[in-house]
C-alpha cells in the first residue's frame, strides 16, 4: 500500500460563537478520521455548516485543531480563495510575486513561471496594470493561474474550481489532471457533486461535524442525496455559515404562471422560479446562480445567472422567468448559489430539496424541447397551404 500523505486522527475543532466571545462553545468538527494515500484524490461533501471549511482550514494549517492530530507528508498548496493577498494598487506582475510568495513559492521560481502564469490567465496585455483596473474575471483568472503553477505534493482545493467561463474551467480541470498524473495527492471540497465524482477516487460526507459516510464517490454522493431528501432543509442548521457570509437562501420555489396552483409545469411552457434570501448586513455586489440537475441530482443540465445584484437587508426575492422551458417531461432538481461578484466565492447555497416535475407539453419524447416554427413548402403552389407555429397550437 502506498504511504499516507494526509492522516487526520480523531480531530475535533471547537469554536466560540456569539456576540459575547466565550459564551457559546460550538463543535464544528468532532472525532474526524481521514486517510488519503499518496497520489489519490479525496472529495469532501456535505451541507453548509457541516464542517467542510473548518476541516480545510485545519489541513491548510490556518488554524490548529482543538483535539486530535493531523500529519501531512509533503509540500502543501491550499487554495481557499483565489487572489488572496492581492493588493489593488500593485500591478498584475507585482501581485503575482506577492500572492505566489504567500503560497510559499520562491521569487526565482515565480520569475521562471511568470510567462506561463500570465498566459494561463490570459492577461498578457495587462500585466503591468494595477489590478484595481482588472475586470473581476481577469482578477480571478490571475489568482487561480498563480496557484495552478505551484508544484505541490499535496493540493487542497476549497470550492475555487467554479471560477471563470467554461473555457477557463476546462483549463483548470486539465491542470488538475496534469497534477494528478504527476502523483499529487489531492483533497477537494466542493458542492459540485459532478466534479467530485469525476475527479476523486473516494469521498467523505460530513454531517454536523462528523463523518456521515465514506467510500466510492458515487456511493457517498448517493447517500448524500438520500439524506437530503430524508430531512429536506432541517431548520436552524445553516446558522453558523450565515453568520460568516451574511446571506442565506431561505427558499427556492417553482411556479407555472399559467397554472399557479399546479405543482408541476409543462415542457415548452413558462416557468417562474423564485428564490428567497435573507441578508444580515449590507454586502458587496453578488450574483445569483440557478442550477438545473437531472433526477440523479448530480448531472448539471443548465445554469442561469443574474449578474450584479445589490442585496437588501433583511432580505428579498429573486425571480427567474423562463418563457419556454426546454426540458423534456420528467423529474429534476433545482439548486441555487449566491456568489460574491468580485471574487466568485460562494457565499450561500440552497441545500434544500426543490424538485421540478415537468409534464408532457410540446415535447413528449427526446432529451429536450427545442422551440421552433414550421411551414409546408409545396413544389408549385408557393407556401400558403399549411403553415403554423407551435406557439399558436395549444399543447396536448
Amino acid at each position, binding site marked *: 500500500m502506498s504511504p499516507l500523505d494526509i492522516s487526520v486522527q480523531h480531530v475535533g475543532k471547537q*469554536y466560540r460563537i456569539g456576540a459575547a*466571545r466565550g459564551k457559546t462553545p460550538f463543535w464544528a468538527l468532532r472525532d474526524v478520521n481521514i486517510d488519503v494515500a499518496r497520489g489519490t484524490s479525496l472529495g469532501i461533501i456535505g451541507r453548509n455548516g457541516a464542517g467542510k471549511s473548518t476541516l480545510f*482550514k*485545519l489541513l*491548510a*494549517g*490556518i*488554524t*490548529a*485543531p*482543538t*483535539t*486530535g*492530530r*493531523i*500529519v*501531512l*507528508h*509533503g*509540500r*502543501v498548496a*491550499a487554495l*481557499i*480563495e483565489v487572489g*488572496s*493577498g492581492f*493588493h489593488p*494598487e*500593485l500591478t498584475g506582475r*507585482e501581485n503575482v*510575486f*506577492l500572492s505566489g*510568495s*504567500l*503560497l*510559499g*513559492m*520562491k*521569487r526565482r521560481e515565480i520569475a521562471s513561471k511568470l510567462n506561463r502564469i500570465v498566459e494561463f490567465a490570459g492577461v498578457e496585455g495587462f500585466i503591468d496594470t494595477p489590478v484595481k483596473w482588472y475586470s473581476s474575471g481577469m482578477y480571478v483568472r490571475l489568482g487561480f493561474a498563480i496557484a495552478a503553477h505551484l*508544484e505541490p*505534493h499535496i493540493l487542497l482545493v476549497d470550492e475555487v474550481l467554479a471560477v471563470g467561463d467554461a473555457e477557463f474551467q476546462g483549463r483548470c480541470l486539465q491542470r488538475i489532471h496534469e497534477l494528478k498524473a504527476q502523483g499529487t495527492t489531492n483533497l477537494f471540497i466542493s458542492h459540485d457533486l459532478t466534479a467530485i465524482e469525476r475527479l476523486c477516487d473516494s469521498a467523505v460526507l460530513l454531517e454536523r461535524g462528523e463523518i456521515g459516510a465514506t467510500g466510492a464517490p458515487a456511493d457517498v454522493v448517493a447517500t448524500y442525496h438520500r439524506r437530503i431528501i430524508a430531512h429536506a432543509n432541517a431548520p436552524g442548521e445553516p446558522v453558523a455559515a450565515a453568520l460568516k457570509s451574511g446571506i442565506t437562501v431561505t427558499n427556492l420555489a417553482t411556479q407555472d404562471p399559467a397554472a399557479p396552483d399546479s405543482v408541476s409545469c409543462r415542457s415548452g411552457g413558462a416557468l417562474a422560479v423564485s428564490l428567497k434570501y435573507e441578508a444580515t448586513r449590507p454586502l458587496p455586489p453578488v450574483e445569483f446562480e440557478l442550477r438545473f440537475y437531472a433526477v440523479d441530482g448530480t448531472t448539471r443540465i443548465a445554469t442561469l445567472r443574474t449578474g450584479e445584484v445589490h442585496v437588501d437587508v433583511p432580505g428579498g426575492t429573486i425571480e427567474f422567468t423562463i418563457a419556454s422551458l426546454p426540458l423534456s417531461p420528467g423529474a429534476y432538481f433545482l439548486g441555487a448559489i449566491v456568489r460574491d461578484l468580485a471574487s466568485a466565492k460562494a457565499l450561500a447555497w440552497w441545500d434544500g430539496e426543490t424538485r421540478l416535475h415537468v409534464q408532457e407539453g410540446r415535447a413528449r419524447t427526446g432529451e429536450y424541447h427545442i422551440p421552433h416554427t414550421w411551414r409546408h413548402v409545396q413544389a408549385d403552389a408557393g407556401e400558403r397551404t399549411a403553415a403554423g407555429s407551435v406557439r399558436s397550437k395549444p399543447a396536448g
Partner: protein
Amino acid sequence: MSRPTVVYEPPALRHIHPIAALRGLRQFLDLFVTLSLHRINVRYKQSRLGLLWAVLQPLAMMVVFTLMFTLVRANPGGPVPFPLFAYAALVPWTMFSSGLTSASSALTSHASLLTKVAFPREILPLTYIVAAVVDFLLGTLVLGALMLWFDVSPGWPAFWAVPAIIILIAFLIGVAFLLAAVQVRYRDVGLAMPVLLQVWLFASPVLYSLDAVKATLSRPLYFIYTINPLAGIVETFRRALVLHQAPDYGSLVTAAIIAGLLLPIAYVYFKYVELTVADTV
C-alpha cells in the same frame, strides 16, 4: 524535492520551540523580502512627498521642541545646539514609536489574509519593522546633514550607535510581537497605543539628558527609570554621534538584558497565539 512532514496538534506552549519556528521562517524568506519591499513601496506610492515623510515626523518634533525651549529660555542640550541634541534622540525614538504602532496592529489589520492563507505570521509585524528601520536610515542621513550644518563632526565613540540600534531593534521586535498577539484578543491595545507612546516619549531621555535624570532622582528611583530600555538606548545613540561620549554602561546593559529576555519570550507567546489567530482575529 524532499517531502517535509508537518504535524498539527492542539495549541500547547510546551510544543513551541523558537528555533524550530525560526527554521520555518527561513523557508518563507522570499515572502518576507517581497512583503517588506511592498510595505516601503505602497506606503509612499500615492503621496507627493514620498520618502520625505520618513524624516518629516522627527524634524517637525525637533522644530516644535526647539521653539518651546527657546520660549522658556532653557537649553537642556548643554554644549550641543538643542535642535541637534533633540534630533539625535528623535531619530531612534521615531523608529521605535512608528514601528511599534504599525507592527502591533499587523495581525488585526490583516484579518482576511490570516483566515485564508497559512504562512509564518511573524512576517507581518516584522515587515513593518523593516519599513521603520528604512525610515530610520533616512533619518540618520538627515542627522548627518544637520551635523555638517552645526559643524559637529563624529568621533570614535560613534561606533557605539551600532550596538544601541541592534538592542533597540531587538526590543522593538519583542514589544511588537507581544502587543500584536495581545491585540488579537483585546483591541484595547490599539486604542491605548497613542497614550502609551506619549507617556513613553516623556519617560525617555529624548528631550533631556540622562545625566539630568541621574542628578535629580534618588538611586532606587533612577534604577527604576533605567528599566525602560529606551533610556540606555537613546542616550547611548546621542552620546555616540553628537556628544562624542562613551555610553552610560549601566543603563545600556540593563536595556540589553531586558531586550534579550523579552524577545524569545514574546516570540514563543506570539507563535502560541498564532495557532488560533484565524479563529479570533
